[in-house]
């Protein structure tokens, strides 16, 4: 791209805020009641993280993979790509994340979560709860209809925020491999919302960074020790 410094964030926004939220509204109407399944998956992940049930790592990875794959196909590829040609690549990225979760988390069973106690775990579970239950409320709080609410499991932003919170609790370097796409999506979503002058851009970025905090604390052993 020549003279790249002359481009602003808004130069890359291909649609109006009204079109974007209308797209989400029509998507929600088309997939209803899949949103209920999304919320159920979110609450199940939360319960599994707190309860530390047997095989919970595999189940959590599998549930997250289902959400990422759904969003890749039903949202990015089928809907968002209509108004944003880059969404085809977003679909590929979300599909890759789903594949990583299946390979690393389900098939190889390489996910081991930090003990769900202490301030770090409290922060992670709080962010997941906010992403699942609180994020949909933003629609009403910002003057949009309930039908345009973005729900965990079927909408990209709350799913990415919750995924960062979950994956930041994973022990070992493998977590960084799984965190790349969710963290990048938080940045892309925040940039898109800023370009639309939507205040929730700050919320997505702040939630994404906060959710990343456990992974940034240090080595997994240090983090685990801090939680005991």
């Amino acid at each position, binding site marked *: 791209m020549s*003279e790249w410094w*002359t481009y602003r964030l808004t130069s890359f926004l*291909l*649609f*109006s805020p009204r*079109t974007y939220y*209308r797209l989400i509204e029509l998507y929600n109407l088309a997939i209803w009641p899949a949103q209920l399944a999304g919320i159920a998956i979110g609450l199940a992940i939360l319960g599994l993280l707190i309860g530390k049930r047997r095989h919970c790592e595999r189940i959590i990875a599998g549930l997250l993979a289902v959400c990422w794959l759904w969003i890749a196909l039903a949202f990015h590829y089928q809907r968002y790509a209509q*108004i944003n040609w880059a969404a085809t690549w977003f679909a590929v990225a979300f599909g890759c994340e789903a594949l990583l979760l299946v390979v690393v988390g389900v098939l190889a069973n390489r996910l081991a979560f930090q003990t769900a106690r202490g301030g770090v775990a409290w922060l992670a579970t709080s962010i997941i709860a906010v992403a699942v239950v609180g994020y949909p409320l933003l629609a009403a709080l910002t003057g949009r209809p309930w039908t345009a609410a973005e729900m965990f499991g079927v909408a990209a932003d709350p799913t990415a925020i919750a995924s960062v919170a979950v994956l930041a609790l994973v022990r070992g370097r493998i977590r960084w491999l799984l965190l790349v796409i969710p963290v990048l999506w938080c940045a892309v979503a925040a940039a898109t919302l800023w370009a639309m002058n939507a205040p929730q851009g700050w919320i997505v970025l702040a939630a994404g960074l906060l959710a990343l905090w456990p992974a940034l604390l240090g080595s997994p052993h240090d983090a685990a020790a801090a939680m005991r």
Partner: protein
Amino acid sequence: MWSRRRALRMLAAAGACAVLRPPATASAQSRTVLTRPIPSSGEALPVVGLGSWITFNVGDDPVARDACTDVMRHFVAAGGRMIDSSPMYASSQDVIGYGLHKAALTERIFSAEKVWTSSGAQGHEQIERSRQKWQVRRFDLLQIHNLLAWQEHLPTLFAMKAAGQVRYVGITTSEGRRHRDIEQLMRSQAIDFVQVTYNPVDREVEERILPLARDRDIAVIVNRPFRQGALLRALARQPLPPWAADIDCASWAQVVLKFIVSHPAVTCAIPATSNVAHVRENMNAAYGRLPDGALRSRIIAAMERA
């Protein structure tokens, strides 16, 4: 020796004089749409067209598609002809095709499209896809979007023009980018159109590109007349001055458009909107009197205060 271009230019100038009368003699009651000739052919184009950047990218939302169709219907009913789009504008091409077909406007518009791919080999294929989306027999104008891969696309477009597959060839830029390259192509290539950003705030093109366009008989399309609405939002705080009535303007949008199209090198400005009231307001700027030099200076001063 008189070239065809030179002869057409003289005819075009005569045509322009017939329509773009000076303020002192123009009638405020006139309902003849203001037109400018395309220098390379003499064909008259209404001075206000319709852009589709952002505004027509509404996906497959049936309500929004019908709203865009209404905009096109009112645009054509008010005398408008040029509708401009690009493969870069996502679903805008589909929405234009939907509206043109539904409102039976295909034969009444001047279709301006672009080629936007870094691969010269894919240019022809992309143009054909665009044509199918518009549902037109051929495009009136094909432009190279932001000069992307112009070395490869320009021969393709000239070949298409020679074969009667497109009527005019052009190049585009926006927001002041690559003006040196634009100038170089205007000097060296037999293009019919150039598309640039111009408004009372962004006036860099007045120095070289607009005079060059007149000198080289190249039609000028003006994009971003309102800086994507920012100019009008800033002006909304100011009351419309009394002198706006002297050029038959009832809004700042009309003042800005009349400033743009009163430049003698400008052929057509292409404001984008998805609002019927706005397209009607914009099209009213294609009627009545235009500002003279003194009034143009007052418009610039008003913009600088905003």
